[in-house]
């Protein structure tokens, strides 16, 4: 075991930042699940809304990616 306490803190922080992944998972699951339940109620309207589905997933995913960015910054920039 080598390294100093700052590096240890950075690695622990990078690990903690992975919790943002769970938040992104909840968000993406929410979007996709609501799309599916709406699509099963009215299947004829579903194909026109797939673009909205992907935009919604992309926005929900973006916040999870910011936690990934924090992890990267802690690993390589601090």
């Amino acid at each position, binding site marked *: 075991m080598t390294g100093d306490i700052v590096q240890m803190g950075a690695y622990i922080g990078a690990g903690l930042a992975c919790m943002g992944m769970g938040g992104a998972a909840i968000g993406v699951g929410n979007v996709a699940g609501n799309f599916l339940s709406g699509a099963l109620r009215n299947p004829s309207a579903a194909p026109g809304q797939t*673009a909205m589905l*992907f*935009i919604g*997933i*992309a926005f929900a*995913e*973006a916040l999870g*990616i*910011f936690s*990934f*960015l924090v992890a*990267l910054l802690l690993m*390589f920039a601090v």
Partner: protein
Amino acid sequence: MIEGKRIVAEETGGFAIYPMEQFIVRPLLGGDTVGLFTITNVTLWMALTVLAVSAVLVFGSRGRALVPTRSQSIAEVLYSFIYKMVEDVAGHDGVKYFPYIMTLFMFILFSNLLGLIPWAFTTTSHIAVTAVLALAVFISVTVLGFVLHGASFLRLFWISSAPLALRPVLALIEIISYFVRPLSHSIRLAGNMMAGHAVVKVFAGFAGALGIFGILPIVAVTAVYGLELLVSVIQAYVFTILTCVYLRDALHPHH
């Protein structure tokens, strides 16, 4: 971004996996230093991406048969898919900017897919590459908005349908979210590509470490590879459709 740093994911009796090693930028023609004009593996795979895109589209559109051949229908499906997306999302006056969006989609799609070939280099896994793509979109869309609408482009941030007391707060949020766009736009693509390819490499490393039981990680890596094919296409689609959304905001800033 990750140059020169090796992350050891798993060590079993001297066996080590280096999942991040595939992202190291190396000079192609010997030497160690990477300068501004050094030919690296990134240069090679970007050139191959451009060649592949040109080959698919040029050979596909060469015959121009009424009943398309296989290569022609690939080119036609790609063209009409993007054309319909631009028309649906950005509106009819967004079709003028279709060549740029088609170029973006084809470059990202082929770069993602070529990166899945073993020993290939994924150019879109580097934030330096995707940041240039995202900044180009961000700057051109902002300039376009000001050229088309002048100062009234700023009404994009002043939501006139909201109550008056709420509008300054919303304007602040809208401005922050506007300037975060190039960041999330670029990191989404780079992050997905980097994470996906590192996962494939980690599973492949397990197969070497487990000996006879390595059949299990091989089955897993096949499934992950299939998922990565899907993610590669979806991320190219998402990058393109977000470009269309930003273009729509520049063309019609009044909500």
